[in-house]
């Protein structure tokens, strides 16, 4: 069966044009849900739709098959309009088993589409999902457009021409995610080439039989969608109106890795990435380890502490020292971060935040490490803190982090999170030649050298690396005397040095872009956000504006120091609202810094904000004004 042969007998259907569609794939973590979602995303990207994705993993790699905790999800919104979130509620749910159906059905609006693999609703499957009755029969699906497709049987049938000794029964069954993907490609008028090419590139040489089986399953699914009459319509989503340029799809962790590599090129210094595997940051280590031809050194350390201290050692020797982790790793690194504060060493600390405290929710997103980055170390410990707002922005912020760390000789935090790290969006590629070089000045002249002699403007000390004749000197974590850098316990000197380290971080303001207002400049309500909530806040602000509410949005990319104009932008508003995926951390900083009676919109559910929940809070607040 091929799509071509099927076309001949295909029923003629009108194509309905839609502006936006939200699809959620759900199944066992072993069902290939993430793989199907990613392929749908890549294909959709090449069609020129705007898109935003939300992969949602269970914490267990392979939780017992078919159980509720083992359900893995992948949501994508794609659109012909400019969109900023993966969507509040799916239009389509693809559920590979009863557990996936039961976990996700509550998010589905009435009359939305539910596609289930009807082959996986046997007695055992239902028991694993703790279903007392069969949801396909007990009315659970009343009010939905439900499609019961025997996906497993159809997949096996499509592959019956391949002998079992070439591709095993089990491996054939595994192709069911691509059969399903084929159906969706048909329904939403997506071409199969991107995925077919990907199979051939990835498995064509290594395992041609498996590549072929998956390609056949994909095509069979497509043909099934086309030939059978169960689907009422076919849909299309026209391309979005993008600014001219070359685009690709990117997730936040890839963008961080590419940004760091770019920074290394722009600075002309090798990148050293010290890291210990931790969800959801490990993919940065994996990505960087693939790019040794850029001179990248990846060091998988024995623990989080060695990861950061080796990076400090590398910076000391003149490389760009970077460490990456998540919140629990930051906790372990705090003493070493202070060593970089004290020795005034360039250091980039990438924190892909996740739900906490303690082990918390390793695979879920949260923004609750802001206070940890700001204050989570002993004594007066000022550091720079930057936060990208979108996956693509992780590239720019990574470069900026390196630039600031080198210019100001200080640690710089990059606060991303699981949602940004795993979520993808189209990215207009920057022109490489437009990226400004990063100025690196190693001190070399022994005549005017003192380890803590500061630049008058930036207050940074010289970067004097081992190997430079005549600059032999000693540094360390004990308090240093101003200029000479000798061990010094003098009270006045310590007071001075604490203040100068803090002042230095404040001087970074000169390199931080002023904050901008999105929406009506003079709106009485101002939303102030940071990090990955950008998309939800922006979409909510636009929706509120559409409903006639005067509300504006400022998104903070630099949390320490804050943008120089932030106080002005906040002042005089009737209401300042601070939406965060924590219990009020930026809120606390803003109230302390600007003495403003700001209010928080907070949730810690391991999930991004829904646009609708923000809009309803804005509406409530507007009424009360």
């Amino acid at each position, binding site marked *: 069966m091929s799509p071509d042969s099927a076309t001949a007998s295909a029923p003629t259907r009108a194509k309905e044009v839609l502006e936006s569609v939200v699809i959620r794939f759900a199944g066992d973590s072993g069902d290939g849900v993430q793989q199907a979602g990613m392929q749908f995303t890549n294909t959709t990207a090449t069609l020129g739709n705007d898109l935003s994705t939300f992969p949602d993993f269970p914490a267990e790699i392979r939780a017992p098959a078919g159980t509720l905790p083992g359900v893995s999800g992948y949501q994508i919104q794609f659109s012909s309009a400019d969109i900023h979130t993966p969507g509040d509620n799916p239009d389509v749910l693809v559920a590979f088993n009863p557990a996936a159906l039961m976990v996700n059905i509550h998010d589905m609006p009435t009359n939305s589409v539910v596609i289930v693999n009807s082959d996986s609703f046997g007695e055992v499957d239902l028991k694993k999902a703790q279903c007392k009755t069969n949801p396909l029969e007990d009315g659970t699906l009343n009010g939905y457009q439900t499609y019961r497709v025997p996906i497993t049987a159809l997949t096996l049938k499509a592959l019956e021409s391949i002998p079992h000794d070439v591709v095993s029964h089990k491996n054939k069954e595994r192709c069911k995610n691509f059969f399903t993907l084929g159906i969706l490609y048909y329904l939403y008028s997506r071409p199969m080439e991107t995925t077919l090419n990907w199979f051939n590139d990835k498995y064509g040489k290594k395992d041609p039989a498996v590549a072929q089986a998956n390609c056949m399953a994909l095509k069979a699914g497509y043909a099934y969608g086309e030939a059978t009459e169960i689907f009422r319509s076919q849909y299309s989503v026209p391309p979005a109106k993008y600014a001219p*340029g070359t*685009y690709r799809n990117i997730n936040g962790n890839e963008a961080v890795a590419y940004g760091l*590599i770019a920074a290394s090129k722009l600075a002309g210094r090798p990148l050293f990435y010290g890291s210990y595997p931790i969800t959801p940051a490990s993919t940065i280590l994996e990505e960087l380890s693939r*790019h040794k031809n850029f001179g990248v050194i990846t060091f998988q*350390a*024995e623990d989080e502490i060695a990861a950061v201290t*080796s990076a400090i050692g*590398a910076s000391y020797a003149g490389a760009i020292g970077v460490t990456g982790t998540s919140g629990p790793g930051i906790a372990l690194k705090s003493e070493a971060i202070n060593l970089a504060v004290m020795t005034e060493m360039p250091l980039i600390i990438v924190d892909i935040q996740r739900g906490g405290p303690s082990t918390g929710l390793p695979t879920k997103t949260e923004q609750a490490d802001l206070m940890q980055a700001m204050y989570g170390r002993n004594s007066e410990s000022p550091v720079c803190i930057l936060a990208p707002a979108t996956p693509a922005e992780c590239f720019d912020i990574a470069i900026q982090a390196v630039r600031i760390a080198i210019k100001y000789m200080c640690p710089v935090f990059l606060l991303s999170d699981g949602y940004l790290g795993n979520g993808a969006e189209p990215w207009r590629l920057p022109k490489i030649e437009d990226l400004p070089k990063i100025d690196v000045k190693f001190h070399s002249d022994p005549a005017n050298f003192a380890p803590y002699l500061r630049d008058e403007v930036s207050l940074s000390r010289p970067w004097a690396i081992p190997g430079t004749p005549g600059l032999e000197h*000693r540094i*360390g974590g004990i308090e240093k005397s101003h200029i000479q850098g000798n061990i010094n316990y003098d009270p006045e000197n310590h007071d001075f040095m604490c203040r100068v380290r803090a002042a230095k971080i404040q001087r970074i303001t000169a390199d931080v872009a002023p904050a901008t207002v999105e929406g009506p400049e003079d709106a009485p309500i101002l939303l102030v956000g940071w990090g990955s909530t950008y998309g939800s806040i922006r979409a909510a602000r636009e929706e509120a504006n559409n409903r006639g509410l005067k509300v504006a949005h400022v998104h903070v990319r630099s949390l320490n120091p804050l943008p120089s104009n932030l106080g002005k932008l906040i002042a005089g508003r009737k209401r300042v609202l601070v939406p965060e995926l924590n219990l009020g951390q930026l809120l606390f900083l803003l109230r302390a810094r600007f003495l403003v009676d700001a209010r928080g919109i907070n949730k810690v559910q391991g999930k991004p904000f829904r646009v609708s929940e923000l809009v309803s809070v804005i509406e409530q607040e507007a009424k009360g004004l």
Partner: protein
Amino acid sequence: MSTPTTPSPAPAPSPASAPAAPAAPKYTKKDFQTDQEVRWCPGCGDYAILNAVQQVFPQLGLSREKVVFVSGIGCSSRFPYYMNTYGFHSIHGRAPAVASGVKLANPDLSVWVVTGDGDGLSIGGNHLLHALRRNIDLKILLFNNRIYGLTKGQYSPTTPFAQTNKSAPFGTVEQPINPISIALAAEATWIGRSVDIYPKHLMEVLKKMAVHEGSAFLEIYQNCNVFNDEAFDSLTVRDVRDDRNVALEHGKPLIFGKNREWGIRLNGLTPEVVKLGEHGVTEKDLIVHNEKSQPLAFLLSRLEPTAGPYDPKGERPAMPGLPLPIGIFRSEQRPTMEVRTREQIANAKKKLGEGSLERLLRAGDIWTVA
């Protein structure tokens, strides 16, 4: 192979640990001294070690700017302040990790780590293990005084069982660990032991350590005259050391004693002391030291004599107990991590070409909007 991190304007010669190569300036001991006031307690064994290191360094052929001393926290970790080289006094236990970053970023540097029994084996035990296992070319000097000195007298991981001290007034209830055995288990490629009050021996061992390419671990018995005085006297004071130490020499039988009258032979898997010439014992019966044999090194590392109190007037025993081995337990060549890392980079460049940002960003599916 290119060395992209070389900071000096002159092209880098062969690794700094190969002393024969470049013409380093002619130094004297004084060139390695700093203007910093040394702040160890009077009589501390650290002075003798510092003195030995400062005497040895002019003989190593290393340019001063190429040398980095990294330390953690503790009395021994003040060491870098007194060496007129580059120095980094880091945080407790982490010196091997900091030093690993330094060496990986710039393999041309000669990187030395100074640590102690608390710093290196307790809080930093993990880093020590992994630095050794990776065979990064670090010279690690572990000053073992079997006590916490800087925090004033608590027991350390090498404090003998049942010894009383500030944090164990009724005696420790913990089994101490053996640094040499630990280093062997961690796959260190060079392992030695010396003593603060054996300046000649210490300098000889330091010189050999300096030319080893790979992780090198030297345990130095060091007397803390304030909190654990005379900890090693029963093994190391002049009158007994010949009878209670055996100097390890590659290819030579294990012979010791004031008159070199005793040897060590294997009885099954158990080492025992024998008297040469007695019961027909000759040198041929003795264990011959072999720095390439890891099983032998481990066996020797387990010789931990607990000789009784030293009595200068006492008679020499007819047959002593097993002696304390000093010298080099193991010395083997294996490619270092920094060399392997550089090789991977060079191979990747050969295979994929020098990294291009343009190509990196455009890999995979891209599309153009006009």
